[in-house]
């Protein structure tokens, strides 16, 4: 059954430094309740919003990255609704129908489909900047069980960028890839940290052929987005196949149960009394954009082009790009002469794997070796001092242990034949076991050889092969 998917992605510009209209911190998570506030973001009478340059510049860079039509002026509007966590009971946004002008009018979200290693695109309807409300917390965990509700305005006024696509995304998987690419781009620009709790949320709308549009609200991860969409398409298709009708409604994604639930049926047009905010004169975009573009930034697509130019496959390149410090390190070290393919393999696969296994944060640049070390490592292999596997099994783990110390003592190379022979002579029982067909015995023998080599450069795969050959000859 045919269907259409459109998305509204709300991203928090947590890396902007300031809130949208005051100098409080955009990264509000580290503060005690109601300590990251001022008269402006508390909406106190008489306090006035003054647009801060950094959030606007970041939003313009995102717009620029997706080929947006950027209007000459931005105009902020007020959207009114009564809610405890909204201090002024209106939100300052950029609704375009009430005289507002958003930061981006129409653009193209070009994204990388890593399953099929191809670029795809979806049309963007608009992007607009707005302020985040505060937060309500309940003493008993939820509204029904609680005697009290607590209001925390630390988040109030944090800049949000809302990105709206046309309803033309072909599959739930594509929706996920598109959002992941958007977030990655914003991370590269330095606008967001997508790994912060609650740093983005997605509202998705789905309509199957012959049915009305259903909106699924508050999806908090890209994995959930894919799941929610799959579920919703299945649910709607089933109703249509059974002769039922899909009515226009808003649903809520229950990520624990993996189902969508009705939130409010029959969406009445709400009355938000939009009008241009008289406290904020229209803002010229050109000088801001100029200032923003003066600091060079690269999108993931730029990285993809550069990295693959060095002969690295798209698959490995993408694996580098998904971890920004790895992609940056790659280019830095190749620029000073590292071997591209070896460096890519270290960064994208083996060192990344080691970091993950040791529980270190792969998004933290200081957890990675620096470009000089990478150059040295790649030279060891390209000059045939070590095989890649010797590097992988002996040098990389040591490097991690030593905290990426440059004064790494390189392991001595050993000729493994003698070691193997002595192990075979000592471990009669294991040898017999292996010959009688117990494969586990081979692992044991490899282990014994490695133990004898005591930290010298040795490649377990080669050892394994050598033992196997020796014993089969017997």
């Amino acid at each position, binding site marked *: 059954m045919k269907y259409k998917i459109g998305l509204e992605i709300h991203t928090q510009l947590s890396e902007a430094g300031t809130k949208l209209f005051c100098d409080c911190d955009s990264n509000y998570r580290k503060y005690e309740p109601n300590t990251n506030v001022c*008269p402006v973001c508390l909406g106190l009478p008489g306090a*006035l*919003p003054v647009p801060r340059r950094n959030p606007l510049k970041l939003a313009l860079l995102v717009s620029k990255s997706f080929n947006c039509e950027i209007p000459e002026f931005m105009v902020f509007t007020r959207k*009114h609704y009564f809610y405890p966590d909204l201090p*002024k*009971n209106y939100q300052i946004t950029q609704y375009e129908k009430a005289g507002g002008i958003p930061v981006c009018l129409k653009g193209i979200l070009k994204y990388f489909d890593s399953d099929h290693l191809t670029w795809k695109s979806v049309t963007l309807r608009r992007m607009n900047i707005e302020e985040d409300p505060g937060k309500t917390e309940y003493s008993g965990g939820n509204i029904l069980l609680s005697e009290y509700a607590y209001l925390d305005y630390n988040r109030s006024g944090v800049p949000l960028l809302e990105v709206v696509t046309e309803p033309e995304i072909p599959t739930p998987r594509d929706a996920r890839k598109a959002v992941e690419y958007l977030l990655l781009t914003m991370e590269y620009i330095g606008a967001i940290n997508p790994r912060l709790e609650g740093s983005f949320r997605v509202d998705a709308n789905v309509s199957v052929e012959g049915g009305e549009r259903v909106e699924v609200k508050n999806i908090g991860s890209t994995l959930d987005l894919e799941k929610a969409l799959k579920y919703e398409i299945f649910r709607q298709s089933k109703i249509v196949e059974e002769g039922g009708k899909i009515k226009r409604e808003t649903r809520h994604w229950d990520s624990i149960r993996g189902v969508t639930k009705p939130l409010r049926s029959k969406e009445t*047009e709400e*009355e938000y009394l939009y*009008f241009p905010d*008289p406290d904020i004169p229209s803002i010229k975009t050109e000088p801001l954009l100029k200032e923003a573009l003066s600091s060079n930034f690269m999108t993931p697509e730029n990285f993809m082009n550069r990295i693959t130019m060095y002969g690295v496959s798209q698959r490995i390149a993408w694996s580098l790009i998904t971890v920004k410090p790895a992609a940056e390190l790659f280019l830095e070290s190749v620029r000073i002469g590292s071997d591209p393919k070896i460096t890519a393999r270290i960064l994208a696969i083996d060192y990344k794997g080691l970091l993950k296994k040791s529980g270190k944060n792969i998004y933290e640049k200081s957890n990675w070796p620096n470009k000089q070390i990478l150059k040295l490592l790649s030279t060891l292999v390209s000059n045939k001092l070590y095989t890649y596997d010797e590097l992988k099994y002996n040098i990389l783990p040591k490097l991690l242990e030593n905290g990426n110390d440059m004064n790494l003592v390189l392991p001595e190379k050993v000729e493994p034949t003698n070691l193997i022979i002595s192990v075979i002579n000592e471990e009669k029982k294991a040898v017999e076991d292996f010959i009688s067909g117990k494969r586990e015995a081979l692992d044991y023998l490899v282990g014994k050889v490695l133990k004898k080599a005591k930290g010298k450069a040795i490649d377990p795969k080669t050892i394994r092969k050598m033992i196997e050959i020796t014993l089969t000859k017997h």
Partner: protein
Amino acid sequence: MKETAVSILENIRKGSLEMEDYVFKKLELIRKKDNIINAYISIDSEDFILDRINEIKRNIASGKKMKIPGLVVSIKDNISTNFLPTTAGSKILENYIPPYNATVVEKILEEGGIIIGKTNLDEFAMGSTTEFSAYGLTRNPWDITRVPGGSSGGSAASLAYGSCDLSLGSDTGGSVRLPASYTATVGLKPTYGTVSRYGLIPYANSLEQISPMARSVKDLALIWDVIKGYDEKDATSVNNNYKSDNKFKICIPKEFIEESEPPIKSTIYKLLEKIENEGVAIEYEGKFENLKYALPTYYTIAFAEAASNLARYDGKLYPISSEGLSYKEMSENTRRYYFGFEVKKRILMGVLALSEGFINDYYIAATKGRRIIRDEILNMTKNCIVASSVSPILPPKIGERIKDPLKLYAMDIYTVVANLAGVPALAMPAGFYNNLPIGIQFMAGPFEEEKLISLGSLVEEITGLYNLIAGD
């Protein structure tokens, strides 16, 4: 007693006037008279004032240059102060002490002013008589059976009975000029953007300015010099170095005077004749085509912005709050019980003006009307200062106007145009009729405050009507 703020300042600087004596005499006067006039909502404690005086003396001793050291200033209670409650004349903000000072308050403190108290106003500045205050009405010191005008009636009255030297009001559609004309004081509505609105509790953001008041144009110039200037905390604030020349011509669009009550008309024409005799060119052939659109345009925009600005008072962040079983109930009750009738009426009309299906015919139409009026005014003030009545009527009796909203709103007909166009306008005494003050308004082009002050100084020399204190 022709004691002006200018002369008092001189005496303080010379050391011939003891600051304590002077300020405490003012406090005594307030204690004696304010229970009848009710110009103030809150007054500083004596201790607070003593501390303040000592601070100013220390600053003087250390050689700090200040523009108004020791002068007594009253401030309208919709301007935020972190040392006195700021209620905006509303029950809903009772006991609210802002955690910050308005920019103008900071400036006055910096320049040595003594802020003695906060003055009464129509609730959220919505009114033209100061009868809509939750803290009781203010009486006109010249005739206590009459209103002082509004919404800055408390500021005007506080000057008129001599309780302070200078005052700050706010002017959204005539709110300092109307009271000035009703109390024989002076009020200047500055060019939009020349005085920071940071800390002014908003009624209609795109129209209003914090506005200085005094008992003479020369005194007014003192406080104007303190409060004007760009402020990065206000995005609508302008950075301007415009210097106006002091050559002036006056023009008079008939529509701006003709509909006034006869004593007002004749007083103004007589004064204009005298001004002309002093060598100022006057052109009587002016026309203002779109005056009839001014009031509906003004009120539509003001109500729409007010509806939005007042949404925040729902009981969650300010001391006053009703109980309710849910947020909805709590906020509805708070707004039902603690907003006054006039405020609720204006909110409702503002909501209507912004609602789907109405916004084009009301709010959008008004913004278009505003552009037409602004263009006409800008054109008119390009070559001359526009003279007019301030109010079409003499100060009304208490209770007389608020019975009929249309009559009440019509009091602002001559003043709202300056707010719609964003241009400066000065109201000052023109004469008296049956012991009731009559004012005249001069409206100039953007940033021509200095020109207005020069003309005003000349006019007060001509009339001799300055530093008038009711009951002296």
